[in-house]
Structures are given as structure tokens and as C-alpha cells.
């Protein structure tokens, strides 16, 4: 289950979306998210959904692959949005026991769920189609991050799956020695987590030392005079993507103002 986390999970294939400059993709996702947060109405969400479908189709990433990695998150946001049903006042639809269900509540829940789904799917599509290095290169440019901070992010991406696997191993080892992580009250549970975090932390420190040596040994000096295997250069398709982005922005704003 731990391996299902999508952060740092690049999906290696060839597609127009993979080919795009990371800066374009990052800006696109930002505009997409901002639009989805500005307002909620059926036209705007329909537009965003259609746009997501279009990018998805172009990306060659199998839908099932994305869904598999999101099972846990989908359940989580579903629960989060369900809470909205009970908290919104409005026209009473029906009553069960002491709980009142309102039409507005249900509508809001649907919109919240839809919005979160859009945001998460779109940003994970960015992860699937962009290698962590490209992503950090892009972020370096888009958000003016320093080179060595960007390197830190690259490395974090690289080590997330490794640490997840390690955590899984530590958990299994302790489960085999009679530890139960699913039993007992909250305090007991937090205490039992301690035995997981200590080795994980210790190993991370050890790994970091090794990695620092490996980077030193390959002449890393914090990004001075560093060249790039894939230098960021806009190509024809990137300008087209920017044009599409502009159209999306305009139509989105129109829907927001109009409805």
C-alpha cells in the first residue's frame, strides 16, 4: 500500500505531453488549480474536466495506472467532501435521526469532491509526465529557486520510494516480532510508531552521508558552472501549449464572470 504513493512516480513513455517543457506544464497546472478554486459552477468544472481529459488522452499514461495509485486519496477526499453535506444550511431535503440533509449540502459536497479530484488528478499527471529533475529544473525557473535547493528537491523525489519501501520493511519486521500498529488507543499507537521512526531516521542519516560522499566524488559544488543534459529551451509545441493555456484562461474567466 505504501508503494502506491504517486509522488516521484514518473511514468516512462513517449507522448506530446512528456515532450513539453516543464515550465509550460507547471504553469498550466497552476492556472488549472487557480481556476478551479476561484468559483464553482457546472460550466467551469465541465471545461476543466474536458481539458483534463484532453491532456490525459495526449499523455499516453493509462487511466488505470493513475487510478490505482490514487485509491487511498480518492477515499480520503470522498470522506472530506461528505462532511460538507452535514454542515451546510439550506433547503431541507430529508432528515435521518438528528441529521438534516440539505440540497445545498449535497451540491456542495459534489463540487468539493469534483474540485479536489480535478486538482489531484491534474497535478499527478504532471508528476507522471515529468521526470523529477525536469520538474525541479522547471520550478527553479518558474519560482526562482536556487540551484542547490532544486537539487535537494530532486533528491527528495528520488528517495521517497526508497524510504517508503524501507518503512514497509521495518513495519513488517516488527509485525513479525509481535508489534501491532493497528491496536490500542491513540497514545499507544503513537508510541508504537516511535519504533518505526527511529530506524527510518537513523537510516536516512546514514544514506545522506553516503549520498553526500557520492555527490562530492562526482564534483558537485552546489550548482556553479553546472551544465544541463536537458537544457530548458522552448520549442514549437511549447508555444502551442501556451496558446492553449491562454484560451483556457480566457474561457475559464468568462465562465466565472458570466455564471
Amino acid at each position, binding site marked *: 500500500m505504501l508503494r502506491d504513493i504517486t509522488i516521484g512516480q514518473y511514468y516512462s513513455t513517449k507522448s506530446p505531453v512528456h515532450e513539453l517543457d516543464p515550465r509550460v506544464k507547471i504553469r498550466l497546472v497552476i492556472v488549472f488549480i487557480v481556476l478551479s478554486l476561484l468559483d464553482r459552477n457546472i460550466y467551469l468544472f465541465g471545461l476543466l474536466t474536458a481539458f483534463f481529459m484532453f491532456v490525459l488522452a495526449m499523455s499516453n499514461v493509462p487511466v488505470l495506472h493513475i487510478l490505482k495509485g490514487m485509491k487511498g486519496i480518492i477515499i480520503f477526499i470522498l470522506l472530506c467532501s461528505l462532511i460538507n453535506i452535514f454542515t451546510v444550511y439550506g433547503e431541507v431535503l430529508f432528515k435521518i435521526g438528528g441529521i438534516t440533509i440539505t440540497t445545498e449540502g449535497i451540491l456542495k459536497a459534489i463540487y468539493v469532491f469534483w474540485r479536489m479530484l480535478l486538482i489531484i488528478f491534474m497535478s499527478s499527471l504532471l508528476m507522471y509526465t515529468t521526470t523529477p529533475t525536469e520538474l525541479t529544473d522547471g520550478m527553479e525557473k518558474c519560482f526562482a529557486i536556487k540551484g542547490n535547493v532544486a537539487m535537494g528537491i*530532486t*533528491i527528495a523525489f*528520488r528517495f521517497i*520510494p526508497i524510504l517508503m519501501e524501507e518503512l514497509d520493511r521495518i513495519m513488517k519486521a516488527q509485525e513479525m516480532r509481535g508489534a501491532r500498529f493497528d491496536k490500542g488507543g491513540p497514545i499507544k499507537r503513537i508510541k508504537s510508531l*516511535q519504533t518505526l521512526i527511529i530506524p527510518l531516521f537513523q537510516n536516512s542519516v546514514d544514506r545522506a552521508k553516503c549520498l553526500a560522499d557520492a555527490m562530492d566524488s562526482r564534483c558537485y559544488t552546489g550548482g556553479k558552472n553546472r551544465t544541463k543534459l536537458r537544457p530548458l529551451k522552448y520549442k514549437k509545441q511549447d508555444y502551442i501549449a501556451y496558446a492553449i493555456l491562454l484560451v483556457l484562461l480566457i474561457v475559464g474567466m468568462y465562465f466565472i464572470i458570466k455564471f
Partner: protein
Amino acid sequence: MIKIKNLEFEYYERDEEDNLTDMINAIRGINFDAKKGDFIAVAGRNGSGKSTFAKILNCLITPIDGTVLIGDIDAINGTEDDIFKIRKKVGMVFQNPDNQLIGSIVSEDVAFGAENIGIPSDKLWERVLEALDASGLGVKMAEKKINELSGGEKQKTAIAGVLAMKPSCIVLDEATSMLDNKSRWEILNSIKALNEKLGLTIIMITHNMDELLLADYIYIMNKGKIFLRGRKEYIFSNRDKLKEAGLETPVIADIRDLLFKNKVIRDDSLFSVDEIVRRVKKEHPKAFFLDTKLQENHFPKLRINPVNAVLFNHASYAYYKKNILNDISLSIGKGEFVVITGGTGTGKSTLLKMIPALIKAKPEMVYVDGVDVMDKATDLGEIRKKIGFVLQYPEQQLFAKNVYEDVVFGPRNTGISEVEAEKRAYEAIALVGLSDEIYDMPINKLSGGEKRRVALAGVIAMQPEYLILDEPLSGLDPEGKQNMLDIMEALHKDAGITIIMVSHDIESVTRYADRMIVLKGGNVFVDGVPENAFYEMYLRAEDKEKELYNLPVMMQLLIRLRSEGLSVDCLITDIDKGVSSIVEAL
């Protein structure tokens, strides 16, 4: 190319209040030389100072005294620019594949070093592809994700990353110690090729004795000093000294010495199966008949204890639509010592993890003591009490502040009295051969081999009936391996514990296990007594010549002799038995 004189390095250990507790003399007066194109091996037990030495070559550590000249650059008193130049010249490959790769994609990682030294973008791809080709990984792998590579492929990526910087020397710090046998030899062969074809100087730090045979010159380190130095002929004639340094002789040298003692050959300076075959043929030409047909494999029925301990009943497992295990049916009896082998990604670890249901499959697929472990109604706690599971690199899973606290963790969880739990912990620590002085020791004060034994003690303290181990020998030096194997043998013979382990260490498999299961593509490929199983693997291999490397050395020699026409019995892996079979055939 490299000249080192009177090298000294020491470091201090301090306690929490910053008081000096220990001064460790890591390196004491080393003299070392390497010329351009040399292949040099540096061997020694864990903690002999060999890795410290390797780091000095790359300026990752600054020694306190002595001279270190890399090319004509002074590595000790050099400027930052000089250090940069040295690191460009001397590339380094480290032990752990996961801790040295920076990029997430092969090509990105290979380019990392070259990017740092400012190779222009338009030349970078050329370098990356060239390096991938030379490292043996191949240009096709350029866009693969690092996380999807096997350990061997990751190490090749690391080598390519060094090659992309165009060094004139590569230092390999135990670069093969975490790999399986097949990948290990693939890497060693590519390194040998780099040495021979590109004229690169190789300095290989290792504790695998068979790897030393590749080198032109060998340094043996012990307690921070150069203990022995010379060509392999000289090094391996010093059996006692090697033992003192915590090392052993390679199996091929043992076989040769035994043949020499039995007067089969009169040359005690041979170091390969081929050389020995040629020599035997030369000295006993009449013993070789023309009949060179392959010996048939007479498979004796396995004597499986009818009391099923672990039963796999058409067990399958898939992950993301990828079949890991395909319809495996197996029965492992009580009291067996089973070794499971197979290449990377054949499902060995998955198979092990299914036994205590750490990986879930469909009901009725796995039984332990007749209980369906995949059934949701089964009390897994009860089943898991019987099973001790030592996962890969168990020392990385230790968590307590000292040895005793870690070992007693398991017994305490079982709900027995504190006194009883304490007793079990003490017994387990004694069983793994650690002295009682170690109880209060903090974990990080222990050596790698000791840590692994502590982890094993933590599992043994649960008093399991079954012990499952995932690559328990990986990364250990000869002494550490022997310790682990002795413990396992004692647990098996004296305590009657059923042992199921995954291991790549073929030589020890043959000595200790009474059954070997080989997995291939998620299926049981071969299952039998180790001797039969190895021979069967050879018979069924498409490329028999290549498969030879995956067999125990004794069997390699016997098969080669037989194919030359000597009527020896090939179904032997034991050195004494093998040599007497040769003596008889002559």
C-alpha cells in the same frame, strides 16, 4: 599514477558531552603505488580500514600525515581546484546502489558528474551514451527509471556515471557486495574490460576472495596496516596470514591445493578452472577417453518430511498486472533447511513474505502447519508466533537504544512475564555468539556483522519453529558469513528449526542446505538436493557455457573435465569428494 607514502589517518569518538572516548587509528603507515593501467585489489575484513583508504584516494577524507600524489597533484595540501582535478581523474563507485544515484532516470544520473564539471549540453548526450555502452548497461536503458532497475543495473549506472567524467582511474568500494552472483560477474567482467580495453586503472576494494583473482596486484589490509602485498600466487600461499586478517582463500585455490596434495597436478600456481583442466589433461593424457557425452542427472527423490510445515497450493501473485508468482505448488517439510535462489525479480522475496501472510493472496493458497494463512478468519498472530522472519538488511531495522532492549522487544510483545522475556533475550544473544558484555552497548557502536547478529537474536528470542531469512549473508565479509552460517546450522541441527532462506551465496548453499529451490519467471524451475539442482540448472540452460559461472566451482571443474573426456562424477559440489572422484578417474 598514484603514489602514497606513510599514510596516517585517525579519528576521535566523542560521547554526548563531547568528551573524548576513543581514538581510532584507522590507517597506520600505508605505502601504496598504482601505475597507469594497473588492476589492483585491496582486501580486508570489515573495519580493516579499506574503505577509509578508498575515500582518501578520492579526497573525501583528508589524512593527518603522509603524502598522497594523484598523478602529480598533492591530494593533502592541494587547493580546492586540485581536489576537483583529482576527482575528475579518480572516479569512485560505492557499495550501496541506492545511496549513490542522484537522478531518477538513468540518463540524468549518468550525466550528473559530467554536468558538474561543465561539459557543454551538446556534448553531454554523446558522453552519456558512450558511458552507458562502456559500462555494459547499454544505450537502450537511457530512459529507464532508476527505481525500476535491479541492483546490478543500478551499479552499472553508477559506473557509467563515473565513466561519463572520463576518468583515468576508478575506485570501486565494495561495489559488488550487495549483488547476486550473476550481476556480480557481469559487473566484474565489464570492469575487467574497462581495464583491458580502455586502459583504465582499477582499484577494487573487496572482501570477496574470488574477485581478487582478477587483479594484477593485491594488498591485504588488517587493522589499518598493509598486512600482505603481492601477486595472487604469493597472497594465496599465505593461508594462515589470510585467516589472521579475517579472510580466506578462494575455493579454486583450495581445490588446486588438494589436487596438488593428491599428486594429480604438480603445479600449485594455477588460478582458474581452465588452467587446472589443461594441466590435468597434460599430466594424465591417457585418462581422458573420447566419450564426452554429458552425464545424465539421476534425480534421487527428495526425502520430504510428510509432516507439511509450509505448503504452497497453486499460489499466484500479481502486482500491477505483472505476474510475480505463477501457480506455485511446493511442500516444505518440518526440519528442512531449504535455500531458494533465482535471478532478480523471480519472486523469491514475495514467496517468503507469503508464508506469514505479510503479502496477501487468495485463500487456500498458502498453508502453515495445515492452517490457511490467507483465510481472513485465521488468527495471524498465532501463526506468526511460530515464524521468525529476518528481512533483508535486518540491521537497518534495529531501533532500541541498546542491544538488550532491541532483542527483548519481541518477547515482551507476546505477553509473557518480564522475567521470562528477559531470559529469552539473554539466551538469544548467547545463541548468536555475542558475549554478555554487549547487552548495554548502543547499537551504533557495533560492527556491521554484529548488528546483523543482534537482529537475528531479536527474531530468535521469539522462539520460532520456522526461521525465514531473506539474503542473510548479503554484504558480509568472510568471517561474518561464516558466523551467520554457523548460527543457522546450530539452529537447524540442535534446535530443530526449519530454515527457509533466500541466498545468492552458492558455495555456502551447497555446504549447509539440504534442498535448493530455483525460481525462474515466477515458477519453480528446479527443486532438489543442491548437487542435483545445480546440475539440472546447467543441463537446462540455453547457454551452458555462461551457466557454468553460476555453479559451485567444484562442479564447474568436474563438468569441464568430463566434457574433455575424463569420467568423473559431475554431481558433486564438495571439494574433498570432488577431488577423490578425479583421483579415481585417473
